Every structure is written in C-alpha cells, then in structure tokens.
C-alpha cells in the first residue's frame, strides 16, 4: 500500500477511536437508562479540564490526571443522575432531552466560570510525545497509543457486561426493568452506577483527547457529541458493538472523505446516517428489536 493510503487509514482509525471513547458511554447509558444524554459531551469536556487541572497540580503527571480526573467527573455524573435525571425517567423523551440540554449550557458556563473563557493550550504526554516513521512519514506515538486503547476499552466492556455478575444485572435491568426490580435488583442504584460509569468513560475520552488536540476550550464537547450521536444511531441505540464499529466507520469515512472528496467530507457522514435510518432505522446492531 502506498504511503498516502496507509496514513489515511491510520488517521481514520485514530479519529474513530477518539469518537468510540465517547460513544461507548453514550450508548451504554441509553441501553440501560433509556435516556439520550446530551450532556454526555459535557463530561468529555469536564474530563479534559479536570484531568488537566490535576496534571498541573501534580507537577505534570498526565497519568495521575487520567486516573483522578474521570473519577471526579463520575461524581458529577452521580449528582446529575441522583438529583436531576431520576425525576424525569417517567416523563416523555422530550423532557429528558430538554433537561440534559440545559445541563450542557450549565456545564459550559460552569467551565467558563472556573477555568475562564479563553482556550488553554495543554502539553504533550512525556514518553508519548514523539512520532515514529511509518513508510517515510511521521505518525505520532500518542495516536498509536489511542489506537491500542480503543479496542482495550471495547474488550474491557465486553468482559464486564458478558462475563461478570455485574454485567448480568446490567443486562437484566436493561432488557426488563420491572422484572429485574421484581427479582430484587435495586434498579435506582444500578441506574446511578451505570450513569456514573458512562460519565467516567466520556471523561476518559476527554482526558485522552487533551494531549492530541493540544487545547481545552469551553464547548469542546459539542463537536464530539454530534459525531458520537451519529455513531450511536448508525450502530444501533444501546449497542456497544454497533458503537465500536460505527466509530471506526465514521473515523475512516471522514479521513477518506477529507483526503479524496474534500467538498463532501461532512456530507458523507450524514448521508450514511440518513441511509441507515431509511434502510435499517434501528441501526445495525440494535438489541432486542
């Protein structure tokens, strides 16, 4: 394969893995809670900011930021689910969307108040900041790292959901809430836990994006959440497998589109979504439908 093609593919896979880290939590939360959380992108932004703040406080240790940042954001997720979302589960979808959209605006302003409105440039990760030569063109080591992390997260999620007692409970509650409740599953607690886990995943995505994007801005979650939504729709709402493959497809499509059909690159993604919606409205891997 030519140098050009290999780099287009690599760029596509790495872009896809960044989307996957956000889409995974989004689809998981929808699968279990049946809530489409617009504010999922805000967790991505918060993950980036909190990670960066911890990193700076700890003398530049990125890994500590990556460990602690998303955990702190998971606590924010706890507060949001426990004190807000819980009260709209029984309402129509529109109310849930309104509430989570309001949270997007609140989180954006909170970030502006805490960290300021300007964009903040963030450093590269020591040890992963270089690049390697692939077919005589440099490719960042960090993106290779992301290409490895994405499938690892997918495997971890698979193992968690399919092979553990916790996973069985989650799947049970997701397929029939009343029945799960009847056999003694504490559904509200489970919902809180899953929502926190989703927030943690999205915050991980944000924290991991920081060194590559090199920049923190208010509103940074909004671009990625749109891509994640597209991915989740294509893959099937609630399907992790669908979200993983959808992310790869969207990442590659955007890379190939930008390189070879530059005037259509934005359309391609949405054309694909439209086609999927017309031809298979439940998405490729929708569960239980």
């Amino acid at each position: 394969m030519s140098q050009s093609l290999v780099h287009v593919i690599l760029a596509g896979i790495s872009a896809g893995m960044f989307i996957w880290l956000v889409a995974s939590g989004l689809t998981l939360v929808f699968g279990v809670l049946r809530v489409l959380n617009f504010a999922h992108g805000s967790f991505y932004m918060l993950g980036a900011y909190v990670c960066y703040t911890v990193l700076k406080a700890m003398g530049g240790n990125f890994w500590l930021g990556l460990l602690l940042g998303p955990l702190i954001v998971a606590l924010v997720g706890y507060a949001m689910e426990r004190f807000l979302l819980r009260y709209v589960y029984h309402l129509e979808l529109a109310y849930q969307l309104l509430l989570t959209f309001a949270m997007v605006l609140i989180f954006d302003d909170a970030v502006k108040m805490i960290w300021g409105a300007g964009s903040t440039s963030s450093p590269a990760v020591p040890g992963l900041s270089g690049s390697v030569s692939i077919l005589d063109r440099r490719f960042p080591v960090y993106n290779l790292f992301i290409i490895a992390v994405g499938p690892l997260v997918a495997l971890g999620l698979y193992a968690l959901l399919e092979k553990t007692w916790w996973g069985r409970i989650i799947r049970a509650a997701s397929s029939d809430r009343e029945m799960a409740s009847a056999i003694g599953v504490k559904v509200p607690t489970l919902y809180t836990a899953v929502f926190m886990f989703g927030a943690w995943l999205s915050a991980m995505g944000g924290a991991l994006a920081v060194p590559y994007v090199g920049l923190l801005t208010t509103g940074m979650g909004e671009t990625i959440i749109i891509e994640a939504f597209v991915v989740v729709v294509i893959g099937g709402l609630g399907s992790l497998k669908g979200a993983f493959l959808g992310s790869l497809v969207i990442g590659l499509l955007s890379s190939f589109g930008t390189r070879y059909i530059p005037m259509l690159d934005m359309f391609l993604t949405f054309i694909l979504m439209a086609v999927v919606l017309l031809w298979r409205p439940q998405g490729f891997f929708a569960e239980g439908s």
Partner: protein
Amino acid sequence: MDEHGTKRRDFLKLGFVTAAAAALGPGVMKPVGLWAATPAIKGPIKVGYQAVLSGTLAGYGEFHKMGALMAVEEINAAGGIAGTKIEMEVRDSTLAAPAAIQNARYFVDSWGADFLAGVDSSGQALALAPVMAELDRILMVTHAATEKLTEEEVFKKGIKQVFRICTPTYQDGNAAAFVAKDLPAMTWATINPKYEYGYTTWKMFQETLGKLKPGVKFVADSWAPFGTTDFRSHINTIMDAKPEGLYSVVWAGELITMMKQAQQAGLFDKIKHVMLPVGAAMDVLEGLGPEMPDNIWISGRYFFLYPETPQNKDWVARFRKRWNHYPAYVSETGYSTMFAFKKAVEAAGSKETAKVIPALEGMELDSPAGHRVFRKEDHQAMYDVPWGLTKADPAYPFKIMGKQVVIPAKECFNRPPFEGASCQPPFKS
C-alpha cells in the same frame, strides 16, 4: 455604569493612568471640532457591543470586552464624549447570524443604543448590514473581515451605516501574496476553514500571487469545518501534494491544534514556507508558546509590538496593568472604536446617525495600531499591519514577529470601484 460592570474603584485605580495618558496627549484625547461651541449632546451616548462570548471562541469575546471597556473607562474619566458619558452594554453574539440580528434589534429598539460595534463572523456581518440600514444606526465592525461587507454592502449597495475598523481579508489574501512573491516557493497549498472566510482568502491569495508571480502553482486545498480538532487528514492531503509553501487562515484554538499536529507529522521539515495571516493573534502565540516553530510568516489585525510609537507602547502598558494580559487584536479594535465614535461625534456636534456618518467618512484617527483613515467610499479603515517571521525572544514567553515586512494598506487593499483588473493589486497606477 455600575450595572454594566465597571466599578467605582476601577475608576479610581484608573484615574492616574488615564490622567497621565491624557496629559501625554495622544490626538484622540483632545476635544476637537464643534462640540465646545454647541450645546451639550443629550447623554448618555449608548454603545451596544456584541461579540462571541460562548462556545470554543468565547475567549475572543472577553478580549473584545477588555479593550472596549478600557476605552469607555478612559473616555468617561476624562470627561466623556462632548461632555456626556458613554454607556456600553456587551451581549453574546455567538457566531450565528440570527443571534447577531436579535442583538442589534434589542440594542436599538429596547435599550436605545446610539451606536453598535463588535461582530466576529463574516456571515454575521453580511447579515447585519441591511438590518443596520433599517435601524439607521452606525455599526463599527471590529473583527469580521470579509471584503464583501465593505465592497458589496457599503460601496455597491450604499449601506452607509456600516464601517470597519479592523483590517479586512486584503491583509490575509493580498498582503500575504505580496510577501509570498519574494519567497522561493513556486508551489502552494492550503488548509483553510470550510466557510466564507476560508474560501475568499484562498481565492484572493491565488489571484494576487498569480498576477505578481506568473508560473506559480496551487497544488492542493484541504478544508477544515468549524470545530475541527483532528487535522491529520488535512495534513496528509498537503503532504501528499508536496508543495513548497503552505497558506492557512485557520485561526484561534484550531490553529493551535493544527500547528501542534503538523509539527508531530513533520510537516515543517518538508514545507519551508508557511504563511499564517492570523497567526499573530495573541491567543495563538501564547497558546503555542515555544511550540510555535521559528520562521513562520504571521500577521493579524494588529500586533502589540507594532507600531513602535509612544502611543502604542503606552497603551500596551496600560492594558497590561488593567487586565494582566497582552492586548489581543480585537482588544485594540474594540478600544479604538470608542475613540473613533468620540472623535466623530465631537466633530459632528451630534450623535445622530445622519450627522456622524459624514464625520466618520475620511476621518483620521491616531490609535494604538497607528494612523487610521476611514476610506470614504467603502468605510474601510486604512492602516498598516506588518507581516513577520516568528522568532524566540528572551523577553517574552512566546514567539514574536521577528523580521517584519510592511505592505502598506494603500498598496494591497482593493480599490473602489472594485471591478476590473486595476481595482485589485498590483495596481496599474
């Protein structure tokens, strides 16, 4: 003023600085014209300012605000405009045209604005022009750069209410071409924003450079939608085309991201001539810090180290003291806008739109960015901003403009009537 964010103690704090500034006597501080002789204008003079205060570019709005607010404070502390105070309200314009129009209507219809200022996006500026004619208030554009605003809306359609104090796309397209013609690069490519600003600047750069340097080739173009965080595919496109020069008006945070990712991809090892028309923005220079490579051509709408006049140096010092920041270019244009209004109102002896427009037309203004003249035909402020090569300087934690080249505005700004070859540089006469 208290309700609009200025506090009494800020005034006190500013007292000395402003008094000193007034004593040093930049031309703009002196009462000029008729106003001393005519009865005081019924005040206050209300300025509605709009800029982007939310989303990824929210930092720009804050910098607009710093400049404009500082001017309001200084003018009011020195007695106001023709003896009346300025009042300013700042609203978030986002980047959407409907929001900009809503703000303009609110300012004029509900708040009673005498003047409007601000506006970041070219799309917003073009949408606002007819609204300004209808509302009959002067709008001073401080950031939006499309040449269509002044060529089409003001000059051709005759919307006299619109003025622009910042450099337009001529600085990004034409001036860049004048610099590029003296570089050895014969093949150029671009990564540009996928909207009006990106298309119009690349077209202008190609046309002007094509005329200045026959034989030059444009080998690739890659377009980045607003909000792009991953430029790897765009960088691949450029590196596949192997140009000698890269031109990009990608701006603000996206430019920081693009530069970092291009560095990682080794782009600057392969492409030696890189031109960034808005690379001299403070958020970009400070954001990239030492990661900005050396010997990149950068420019902007104002750069705080140019011109080397006492007025500019003094202003930069006051700005740093007031806000603890170097002034961004939108801070300078926001600041100078207030002094342009002041000078024009005092010359007209009135704040009425119909009387202030002729006062602004052809008006000269000594501002931190240098000597400005508002061209009568298209209401574009003529002033020079240098192009320069990035270099490290121990006095600053970021790269500054080293070797500077000044392409005078009168040589690179398109000329009325904006039709035919002789209206676009290089000029025949």
